[in-house]
């Protein structure tokens, strides 16, 4: 039997999945604590022992691949010119590369901006600005500001190609690693974030992994290839696109409500489903990831409550307002709490539903009617996801929910909000064994088996 070991070094847990490469099935899974701050091998070894017990010995692994969101994840700062244009394109590139955005800057960096970037101490800076043949002055100014700063982290340059050589020479002073990629916005109507994403992943694999001490596990794994969110996005893309002969699921959405953030991934062009609709704004990435840092179902309980209202949460959870308030306070003061009794579980699912609802509303595009002298016109901003056929939930909050279908239904179109282009009638699925990251990793070496594993890992909760 040919097998693969897929590891996720998470912020709390080190998770393992052993896959059978001949059949494309899950052999077993196990987890241990995340011990990246002391010695990453302690947690990894504990997880591996647990896996060996379950499988009665470990098979010979043909591949041992890992992703990581440990040690704060891939912390990035992005810099662009106009906030709605290259600065936004830079954000999309970094998010698509699986980064945790800790700062986004636009226009000329001021002295205090540069001090703020240095204080954020990012793992990578993505420097953009100007279309090809467009503005050079601002990205050059920002490169000079970074060169003169105390910042020593790697810089990926993906702006106006006419400024790139000069910037590389400026920043490459022997102490700082700098690399170039194609412009994230080569023309005002062309988004091209794939080269920048590839460059970020490369820097992550070659430099950040060792800088964070994750490479001390190197003897046991062949490589730490991707930040975990990028592995999930890769898995989602594989599921949507399929592989040659095997058709994929087509356009899809993955929602991942977590303790600190709620992530949404959508795969698909997002072109208007209806004819005659005019698209407005920056082109949308085919594989798009958004991260809602204010919608963690543990760390941001109060933000979710503020957005939805404690009355609505109490009603949804079947509690009185007083009961709900007390329980919500308790949750926020002890973020590690897992729901115990039925009332706590109901409250938890209410929070998860609210987080999924708001995160999806922000991720999906909108359509509005603009009245012109020639009659009404439909104008679309963002991605039209109304025709998406699959909504997939991943992560413990959905997988362990009593009623995952009701949580995923919160991601779908709502008659009270007709402007939001959310999936209208999708099939609802759960990534039951947390296989998306594993499939995304495995896809780097064997796409066919990876596709099989991802597809089999889906449990349909509502047709």
């Amino acid at each position, binding site marked *: 039997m040919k097998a693969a070991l897929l590891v996720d070094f998470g912020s709390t847990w080190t998770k393992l999945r052993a896959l059978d490469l001949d059949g494309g099935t899950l052999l077993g899974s196990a987890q241990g604590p995340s011990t990246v701050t002391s010695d990453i091998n302690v947690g990894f070894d504990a997880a591996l022992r647990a896996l060996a017990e379950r499988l009665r010995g470990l098979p010979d692994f043909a591949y041992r691949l890992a992703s990581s969101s440990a040690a704060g994840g891939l912390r990035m700062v992005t810099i662009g*010119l*106009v906030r709605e244009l290259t600065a936004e394109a830079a954000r999309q590139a970094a998010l698509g590369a699986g980064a945790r955005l800790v700062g986004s800057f636009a226009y000329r960096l001021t002295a205090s901006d540069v001090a703020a970037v240095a204080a954020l101490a990012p793992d990578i800076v993505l420097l953009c*600005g100007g279309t090809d043949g467009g*503005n050079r002055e601002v990205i050059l100014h920002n490169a000079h500001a970074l060169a003169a700063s105390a910042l020593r982290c790697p810089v990926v340059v993906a702006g106006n190609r006419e400024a790139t050589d000069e910037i590389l020479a400026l920043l490459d002073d022997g102490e700082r690693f700098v690399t170039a990629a194609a412009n994230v*916005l080569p023309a*005002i109507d062309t988004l091209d974030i794939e080269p920048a994403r590839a460059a970020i992943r490369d820097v992550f694999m070659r430099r950040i992994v060792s800088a964070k001490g994750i490479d001390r596990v190197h003897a046991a794994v062949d490589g730490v290839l991707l930040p975990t969110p990028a592995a999930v996005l890769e898995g989602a893309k594989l599921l949507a696109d399929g592989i040659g002969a095997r058709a994929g699921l087509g356009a899809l959405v993955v929602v991942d409500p977590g303790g600190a953030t709620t992530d949404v991934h959508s795969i698909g062009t997002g072109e208007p489903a209806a004819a005659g609709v005019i698209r*407005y704004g920056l082109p949308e990435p085919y594989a798009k990831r958004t991260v809602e840092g204010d919608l963690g179902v543990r760390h941001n309980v109060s933000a979710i409550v503020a957005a939805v209202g404690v009355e609505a949460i109490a009603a949804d959870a079947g509690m009185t307002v007083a009961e709900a308030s007390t329980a919500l306070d308790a949750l926020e003061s002890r973020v590690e709490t897992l729901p115990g009794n039925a009332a706590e579980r109901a409250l938890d699912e209410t929070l998860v539903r609210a987080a999924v609802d708001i995160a999806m509303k922000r991720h999906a595009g909108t359509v509005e009617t603009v009245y*012109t002298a020639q009659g009404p016109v439909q*104008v679309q901003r963002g991605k039209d996801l109304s025709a998406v056929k699959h909504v997939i939930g991943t992560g413990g909050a959905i997988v362990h929910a009593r009623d995952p279908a009701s949580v995923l239904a919160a991601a779908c179109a709502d008659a009270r909000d007709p402007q939001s282009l959310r999936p209208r009638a999708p099939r609802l699925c759960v990534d039951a064994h947390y296989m998306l990251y594993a499939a995304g990793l495995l896809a780097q070496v064997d796409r066919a088996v990876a596709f099989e594993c991802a597809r089999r890992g889906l449990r349909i909760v509502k047709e």
Partner: protein
Amino acid sequence: MPRTLVTGVIGADTHIVGNRILSMALEDAGYRVVALGALTPAADFVRAAIETAADAILVSSLYGQGELDCRGFRDACIEAGLDDILLYVGGNLVVGRQPWAEVERRFLDMGFDRAFPPGTRVETALAALAEDFAARDARAQ
């Protein structure tokens, strides 16, 4: 290096055909054209001009509401650091029969360098661009 021109139809105006023809003609004349198309808010002209380091913005308006849409256009450019960018406007700029000289005056007062009445030929616009860019070059020396 070719000059960069931003074109588009401002406001809630969907008349795109004439603007497309203009953009193609400008490209044929050797300009680098950033065509924003129909239904373009004033702010988007300015944003695109910044990223592309444009030398001129050519605003089209065909539905008679141009005066409202273009109000403050030069000010928005100045706010964005494009103090000296060349600004043209053309099309059916106002409703009803108003003397062109008055209409033109209003748009020049708004800070446009030139305004063009309905029926202007592409050659006229090209000649104006050549003349204005030459004047700027002379001023810069």
